[in-house]
């Protein structure tokens, strides 16, 4: 069995465990390459179906192509698509692009808070109606007790300390210093009321694995990852104001793989284009402990 197939099978096993053990399960889809691979793996796990709702946190500052791509695939693959937002913060222009807070505060408001409250059902959720092609207010406000997330351990330090099944406290907080044990393909699938579990099927994948898998399976990805003629492309996708493209001539998946293996990026951190990581030394750790992806 080759190495991509091995990774694939392990991830499928985890997705199926999650599906069997969590009644209120959802999957976060950031539209990026990792969570899109995750979505593809879900289709593999369930023989072409995706019996798990997909949740997208819309900061309203995402690059427009991302949203268009999201809705195109949602309709094509008949996905149970849900999105949530921090409506208040957006209304009051509490954001970095509006010049009213720092990048980290902005992430906390538009992503972390929106995520926590969408998952818990405290804030409204909007669900795609496949008959009309429009999003409607979702009546289901039950909290999600299992949340599948596409984080990889090679992304940055703290993520390498994650479990496949990682409990989050009542306030969605992550108790890094006291994580439960996890071994022998047995996962934490029992949880006390009010808490939830984050599930990480892609933990063992690297950035290169992701692209090689996209290549092998011919998974559709958003065009922003490719150089469209101006010799730049995005390596990691986030909000437009805080994500910079990198200089690259890679026009397709094969060229990205080549570039990752041999070129300029083989030794530069993937999230180096993400500005929020750079604030406060442990910026991402702080965000993640509070419930960020």
């Amino acid at each position, binding site marked *: *069995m080759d190495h991509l197939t091995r990774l694939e099978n392990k991830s499928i096993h985890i997705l199926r465990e999650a599906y069997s053990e969590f009644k209120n399960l959802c999957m976060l889809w950031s539209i990026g390459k990792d969570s899109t691979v995750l979505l593809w793996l879900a289709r593999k796990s369930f*023989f072409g179906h995706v019996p798990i709702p997909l949740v997208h946190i819309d900061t309203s500052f995402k690059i427009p192509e991302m949203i268009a791509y999201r809705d195109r695939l949602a309709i094509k693959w008949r996905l149970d698509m849900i999105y949530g937002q921090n409506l208040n913060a957006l209304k009051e222009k509490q954001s970095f692009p509006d010049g009213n807070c720092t990048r980290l505060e902005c992430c906390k408001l538009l992503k972390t808070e929106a995520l926590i409250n969408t998952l818990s059902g405290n804030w409204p959720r909007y669900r795609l109606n496949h008959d009309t092609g429009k999003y409607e207010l979702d009546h289901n406000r039950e909290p999600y007790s299992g949340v599948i997330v596409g984080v990889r351990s090679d992304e940055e330090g703290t993520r390498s300390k994650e479990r496949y099944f990682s409990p989050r406290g009542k306030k969605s907080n992550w108790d890094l210093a006291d994580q439960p044990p996890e071994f022998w393909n047995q996962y934490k699938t029992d949880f006390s009321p009010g808490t939830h579990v984050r599930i990480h099927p892609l933990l063992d994948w690297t950035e290169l694995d992701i692209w090689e898998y996209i290549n092998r399976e011919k998974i559709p990805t958003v065009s922003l990852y490719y150089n469209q003629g101006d010799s730049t492309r995005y390596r990691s996708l986030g909000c437009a104001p805080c994500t910079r493209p990198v200089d690259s001539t890679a026009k397709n998946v094969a060229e990205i793989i080549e570039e990752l293996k041999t070129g300029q990026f083989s030794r530069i951190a993937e999230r180096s284009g993400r500005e929020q990581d750079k604030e406060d030394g442990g910026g991402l750790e702080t965000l993640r402990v509070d419930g960020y992806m």
Partner: protein
Amino acid sequence: MTALNLEGNRLAEDRENMHIAIVGHVDHGKSTVIGRLLADTGSLPEGKLELVREFCRRNARPFEYAFLLDALKDEQSQGITIESARCFFKTAKRNYIIIDAPGHIEFLKNMVTGASRAEAALLVIDATEGVQENSRRHGYMLSVLGIKQVAVLINKLDLVDYSREVFETVREEYRAFLEKIGIEPSCFIPVSGMRGDNIASLSEKMPWYCGSSVLEILDAFEGEKPEQDKPFRMPVQGVYKFTRDGDNRRIIAGTVEAGTLTVGDKVIFYPSGKISRVKSIEAFNQSKKDKLETGYAAGFTLAEQVFVSRGEIATLAGQLKPGVTSRIRANIFWLGREPFRKHKQYLFKLGTAKIGVTLEEVVKIIDASSLAVTSKDFLDKHDVAECILKLDQDIAFDPPDVLVQTSRFVIVDNYEIAGGGIVEEALADIHQATREKVHLRNIKWEKGYVEEEERAERYSQKPTLVLVTGKKEINRKQVAKVLEKKLFEQGKPVYFYSMGNLLYGIDADIKASVKNDKKEHFRRLAEVANIMLDAGIILIVSVIELTREDVRQLSLGINHEKIVTVWLGEEANTDVEIDLHIPETFSQDKTVATIKEYLQKKGIIFKPW
């Protein structure tokens, strides 16, 4: 470094991944060795080394290679590893995922988490301190976790003038310990993590050493081989049918732990003993296959539909049968905050099965460091012991010499995984005779052409045994009968049956001895229920003061997921597990309505789709 190929101009297809755990006593230099491996193989992201050096300068701290790994704020400030971290690097041969396990005893659960993912381990011992408690304990845990490839690094040789004598003394002491627990290490390597001696390349400081460097030893470890030649085992993760999306396949899904499966093969599911034939192998975005191999997260459909559920293990007829029992002897290590005690209910998870369990007996406790044997009535945190466990339901498993994947289990206490273990052997339980009868019945069972799901669709209900029980003075029969009538009026095929009906009918030949042979009585009731449920019916039986053991008996004959227990009136005075409790204040109408509502909520009765 010629052994390295950073550029990695190779295809994904021929790259191999290997997980390596690094363990040992705290401060013996695990993180340093890894940091050095990463630095010397050029595997760090550009600028990372400078960043950490700069951080140390600014904070007036000596530079530590460990800081390259210890990413948590707490870890950097305390200078220890709390969590198992993973880092990646590659050689010409393959990719490595190195798991840095914490050495501190407090974090043993993290060490277990890290090490259990590994195919091989590096065990680090500080030459100046020699063999310490956790050097031994971690060695012991590696053997319990089943990690057979171990290289021992004797570290900090720079502090002892690269002395051969010191190296050999530590080596002999530790070798003797490993021998006792049945680990034969691949080698002992004298190293200095800090200075990089014998890490990525052989050092001139120790001309007396003619073995391999750490990097060479890593490449000499062997990758995990799939258990292709073992009997076929696939724990069932789920049975999928996505009818709403217009897909009528009923797919048995799971990961193949061992062996192969081919279309046409006769499969037997254990513990139920249900039998069928493989109709097709299913996959998405893949060309049609007719054979499934070890390691694949797969799915297949059956030629004749039988009721199987998550937790069973699919096996092949004609191959070695798994053990099936509800009493086992096992080796257990305990990690829980609370001790593992008798008379307390825990959850037991093996493969995909999840069953209630209690500790029956602690046979002996083994000190993981001194190997001394003691006895106690319970297990404390970090104890390792041989125990006897009693399960609420049957499980299927293999002894470890047949297949470790299906002999390993974990124990859950209060939502947390609190211990792990290996089933060493099936012990006799009181259900053996009944179980054998049921297995034979399932193998011989002749089926008609009507499928269970077709009946369920036609009748808009899942066949279920509803046990209406309560104390002696409560009118169980009346409630059961009214419930039957009410469901019948709504068009449900339903049947009321009392224990008396059984006693004077099917039990007529043994009636006199029933008092002494309650087991046989319930075995027969299970057979009646099996027929009725197979016919698609909801069977309502009133029973006086139902016990856990009664339900257990019934579940040998029919799947426990098809049993619902309803307790009427005052608090239960038996140990039975109750699905629905009806307070004594409820009127008869309200009682029946509540039961009906429950059946609806559980999806046992539903509207036609």
